[in-house]
């Protein structure tokens, strides 16, 4: 392919913002990282993003709130939630609200890959 699919990562945690994009590039995707939902919305990448990897709990606008905002703005970007919190009820709830997947940190690369395939496969 000449253009890679863009995956945008929105997470307030620095470790994640550093490490995830490199892995995504190894998977063959293009990657951008943002420290907050507001930063993402304010950027030029909203329309270009093929898949969003979103932290759930963030100061300011949360992950689910960003998801709703994007729907309101008529974007149909598949969302994969990642979270450091989480109990058994989180994943079903997120999926029930339309997310492609919800992964708990730390997650394996296979799990991430499966989620991305599902996101792009469905798209």
């Amino acid at each position, binding site marked *: 392919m000449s253009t890679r699919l863009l995956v945008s990562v929105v997470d307030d945690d620095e470790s*994640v913002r550093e490490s995830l994009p*490199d892995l995504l590039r*190894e998977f063959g995707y293009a990657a951008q990282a943002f420290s907050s939902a507001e930063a993402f919305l304010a950027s030029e990448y909203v329309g270009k993003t093929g898949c969003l990897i979103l932290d759930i709990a963030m100061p300011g606008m949360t992950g689910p709130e960003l998801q709703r905002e994007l729907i309101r703005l008529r974007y149909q970007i598949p969302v994969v939630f990642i979270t450091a919190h989480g109990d058994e009820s989180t994943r079903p709830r997120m999926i029930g609200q339309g997310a492609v997947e919800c992964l708990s940190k730390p997650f394996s690369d296979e799990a991430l890959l499966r989620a991305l395939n599902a996101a792009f496969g469905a798209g």
Partner: protein
Amino acid sequence: MVINREHSTEESRRLQQCFNDLSQIVALSTALGRGSLSQLVADLLEMLLGMLHLEFVYVRLKDPVNAAPIELGRTAKSLDGFIGPKEIGSVLNNALGSNPQTWPANEQIAFCDKSVSLVSLRLGPQGDMGILVAASTRADFPEETERLRLDVAANQAVIALQQGRPSSEARQPANAVDEPLAQPTIDTVSREGGGELEQLRRAVESLRLREIDIQSVVDAIPAPTSIMTAEGEVEAVNRPVLEYFGRSVDELRHWSTSDIVHPDDLQPTISAWRLAVETGEPYEVESRHRGSDGVYRWFHVRGFPLRGSDGHIVRWCVLQIDIEDRKRAEQALRTSERNLYLIISTIPGLVWSARPDGSADFFNQHYLDYVGFSSEQAQDWGWTAAVHPEDLDGLASAWQAFMATRQAGEKEARLRRFDGSYRWFLFRANPLRDDSGNVIKWFGINTDIEDRKRAEEELRDTQAKLAHMARVMMMGELTASIAHEVNQPLAGIVTNANTCLRMLAADPPNVAGARETVRRTLRDGNRASDIIGRLRALFNRKAPVSQPIDLNEATREVIALSLNKLHRDGVSLRTRLAEDLPRVTGDRVQLQQVILNLLNNAADAMSAIDDRPRELMVSTGRDEDSCVRLSVHDSGPGFDLEVAERLFDAFYTTKGDGMGIGLSVSRSIVENHHGRIWAALNDGPGATFSFSIPGSSEVTISIGGPEGKGTLAANNIARDVG
């Protein structure tokens, strides 16, 4: 009324002794003839001192020649130092006033660190010739026979005085003796020697020599005295008898069939008298006798036998002492004593009294019951056995100090209960002083302060716990925090490692990239281990308890703890705590931890402020939705809006040595109490941190961890920021 005669032998001896003493007193004054007046009085005083075991005896006489009074006195040998008549006189002046005419007949004063009972007898028919004062350490001084001896001595002194003043117009008392009397062959009876028989022998001998003196002795006694035959018939009576009854001797002989003795008392009196005559034992009764005015008065009647050398009774001597006033006083005293006793017994404290030297002489029943001692065991210094050994020295020093300053004082010490357990008491002592300021007695009360002490200890305990709690988090919240915080770097590590493998598996291997991922892995690993390390410094919280809490009270306690620090930091504190603040339900120590955290943060925030006063205000109040709110308002630098979001996050800190846990834990605690916590910038400088909690009604505290709503921004930052 007949009085029991348990100590009849002793009584017999006492009465014999009294009679003997009276004889001697009379003999002394008349036999010495024209010896010097002061010698006579001095001998009289010496005699009285020994007979009655007095502390001192003292006479002040008006000298008819010059104006200065004559003072004579004797003190007991047991007193230290020289105390002469002038010294005694000045003690009396200080205690009773300088005019002996106004001295009370009975008084208690302090003399040489002892409490003494005084009797003052005015001398002379008009009582203006002078005064005789006798003092004893016994509280019940004088009893009747002692009073009798003093009266007689006083009378004899007056007689001697009047005989020594041929130019005075003093009349001789009607009972003065005219016939010459035989010389006494007995010297001053020593009390130690002889024993009862010997004393009897001596008394009898002296009697034998003075058979004809009986009348004169009897006449000298100022109380109604009758002499009866051995068969019990009235033989002779003295003037006071005649004067009181207003009857002739003949009429008096028929006392058992007349109305002289009150009808209710007559039969017991007759029985007692008959028994005495039959058995030869002394007797005493209290009975009412009718005076010449027709009114009955109470008398204490005492009869004792006078025996001849062969042991047979030759006469009976019957004394009648008017006790009407005493009876009335006794009645009143009994009533008031009963009242006083009830009062003292009811006072819910351990009541005691002590002598001027500090030894205890009275304990109320509460006291004795508490320590489980009898009155005898506790007396003097026995009570100190119940004081805790560690507190005894301090208590003793304090007691000495009170006695030295003669001021009231108090001291805390532990006292052992009858069951062996110790309780804290506040010992309080109050002096009772005479007019000169000398202490006559100490009165004290010991109050149980065990509960207060316990409360103080618990407060100290809570203080320690709070200081401790400042470093402790709820385990549930800690676990969630750990999980959350550690998962971040862990995720980084896993992701970076995966990336590394892929980079190395590429063709050609992306070594530079792999190296970068490894570097990041190391950094994340260190970060994770840092977090664990800091958290390991904390240890288990206590299980939270749920109780109704007055937030104002909790706040005041925390403020009390922080005052020192605030003062050191140059922070001035104001409070505005709402009245009628509703209670909240929750864990008191946890909420106090939140308040403490906010206070410390505020103080720390102002630590760099120099150009304006460092002011802290803590306020409480009720919010509209019946929540209870507490706010801490500081005059520090406030906070940046950008970091506003992170204020309550775990591990967010602006302090170099901060853990960054305080606000995050505070948030968890508040949210577990179904409340919210927030921060706002002030209109002026500084920030206000507040939390509000629902008032108690049906609120229950969730003891689990938060359900992920802890990081919702809505709870952290107030809408009124900016």
